[in-house]
């Protein structure tokens, strides 16, 4: 039962005497036994939402176990398994079709997402720290421009970036994808907002008084305090690069350099065009299934890091 103590700004769990360790959600319901009916209603609503959000993934999982014929005329219908289980045949098919190029695409996606994501995060952490903790000439002007840049649609930059890169001779190289991915104005904004509160100036001054240089202060004093925000920015930029479609579609034409998103889209376009031997529906479906697993696993296992972090920007 939650009791309002004087000075009720104390953390919620202090006033929560019925379960002790539970969050305030349970404390609040302690005195509200009457709305059991509403609770059932809420759960029904949740179940409907979950069914909506999960059905496409369920379909994908089931469809990945079918061969092409099974996809069209499976005995169990589209949302249930066919009589034959072909997942491993399909995965073997991914190794054979066009010399196993699918795995190369998947590898490219990993490589682009990690290098672009890590690079963007490093730049954002450094710049956010610089903006938050130093008062250099031009700081406010630059930061205002940066805030404006958050609102520039990144896709509007794709075509001009393509032309610039082609003048530099970088089109159709890995750099054409990685270098533009390093740009993350929103990441810098998040890091600045977070650094401002998480790293007290007194601490920096104390480190300086003890004789630590600026770099040492940054690496040994500030960086450990910034970890939650770093994980969030890293996650956001890795997901952003992993998801990217327009940029690689525009700047890459060599099939060996494509990320898995563009590659699968090409297969789908070919299959729909209906060219005889190019109809590889089962491989597209299985390829899509395999390619979503890493990120789903990453999100489920890194829950405690991103759940608080994704809202950072709003808590300014």
């Amino acid at each position, binding site marked *: 039962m939650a009791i309002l103590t004087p000075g009720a700004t104390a953390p919620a769990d202090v006033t929560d005497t019925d379960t002790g360790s539970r969050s305030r959600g349970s404390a609040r319901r302690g005195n509200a036994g009457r709305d059991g009916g509403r609770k059932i209603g809420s759960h029904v609503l949740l179940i409907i939402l979950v069914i909506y959000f999960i059905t496409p993934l369920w*379909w994908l999982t089931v469809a990945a176990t079918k061969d092409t014929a099974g996809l069209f005329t499976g005995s169990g219908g589209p949302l249930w398994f066919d009589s034959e289980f072909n997942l491993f045949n399909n995965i073997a098919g991914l190794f054979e079709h066009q010399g196993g190029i699918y795995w190369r695409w998947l590898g490219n996606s990993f490589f682009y997402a990690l290098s672009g994501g890590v690079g963007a995060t490093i730049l954002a952490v450094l*710049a956010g720290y610089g903006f938050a903790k130093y008062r250099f000439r031009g700081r406010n002007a630059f930061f205002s421009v940066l805030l404006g840049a958050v609102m520039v649609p990144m896709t509007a930059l794709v075509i001009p970036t393509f032309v610039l890169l082609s003048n530099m001779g970088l089109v159709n190289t890995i750099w054409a994808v990685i270098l533009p991915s390093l740009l993350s104005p929103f990441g810098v904004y998040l890091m600045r907002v977070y650094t401002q509160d998480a790293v007290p100036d007194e601490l920096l001054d104390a480190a300086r008084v003890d004789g630590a240089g600026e770099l040492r202060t940054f690496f040994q004093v500030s960086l450990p305090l910034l970890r939650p925000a770093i994980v969030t920015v890293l996650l956001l930029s890795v997901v952003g690069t992993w998801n990217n479609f327009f940029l690689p579609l525009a700047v890459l034409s060599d099939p060996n350099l494509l990320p898995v998103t563009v590659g699968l889209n090409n297969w789908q*376009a070919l299959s729909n065009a209906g060219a005889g031997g190019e109809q590889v529906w089962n491989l597209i479906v299985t390829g899509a299934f395999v390619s979503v697993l890493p990120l789903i696993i990453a999100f489920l296992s890194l829950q405690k890091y991103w759940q608080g972090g994704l809202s950072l920007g709003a808590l300014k």
Partner: protein
Amino acid sequence: MALTEAAPKPAPNPAVARPARRPRTQIDRMDRKRQRWGWLFVAPFAIVFVTFLVAPLGYAFWMSMQTSTLATGTSFTWFANYGKAFTDPIFLEGLGRVASFALIMIPAQMLVALVAALVLDNLSTALSKFSRLMIFVPYAIPVVIGALMWGFLYSPRFGPATDIFGLVGLTAPDFLSQGTIFASLVNIVTWQWAGYYMIIIYAALRGIDPAIYEAARLDGANGRQIALRVKVPMISSSMVMVLIFALIGTLQFFTEPQVLRAVAQGAIPVSYTPNMYAYSLAFSYSQFNYASAISFALGIVVFAGSYLFLFLTRKQSGLK
């Protein structure tokens, strides 16, 4: 700069709270030298910012001022391309289309996200934790894969719609026809993003001090009133942020219609959205000058639109 030792938390300026014993000029000089480190920290980002944002924008603007024809080569034509763009029925139709997507799609996503977040905030059962994850999971799916998946689900050949509608004795609608493609796209985007917005709103709700709810309840407010009159106003800055994300994303709509085009050729023309138009101008017709003008014009519309929106909601968002 003022040297005050009193202020216990000198907001943005790390240099203020230093003991003011030494002569002022010496401190100032040391201090100014140290502040230069700020540039060193910002420099790597600044280089990328200039190379991949300022330069492409500037270059796009420069290209958009030129016109290239086979007969006369490239000539400087000032704003002729913009005049052409803003009277080009294809571009204007695309702009109108993304505007109507924004009007339908953003409220749809916000509503799903807000309802889910409010429900989840009131529960702490195992089912609610599970639901929170499942509603969020589509965010982890690349947009292309999401669109491909829905393309299969919509397709009369692969999808379950025929069976599901058959159960209740109806014939399934064609989700990929000209009349239905709009709603089909709205559904894909809502499915993909509502969970992400839900997490942002949910985190904001968890940040509210529960004592406020107790106070409202003592005043006789019921659950719904607390949700609508207390919770929603208190998370308005998160809502504004979500809206801005959604607005910027919607106006540059590209991936979903581009992917669905392969299965719904008749319903989605190459110029369905301004971005698709610019893409096909550049890569199918090699009209890079005009494509740059379209990209730049779209950029201006998005920028002005989101700026206007931020201005109109400055009270709710707390931004000044």
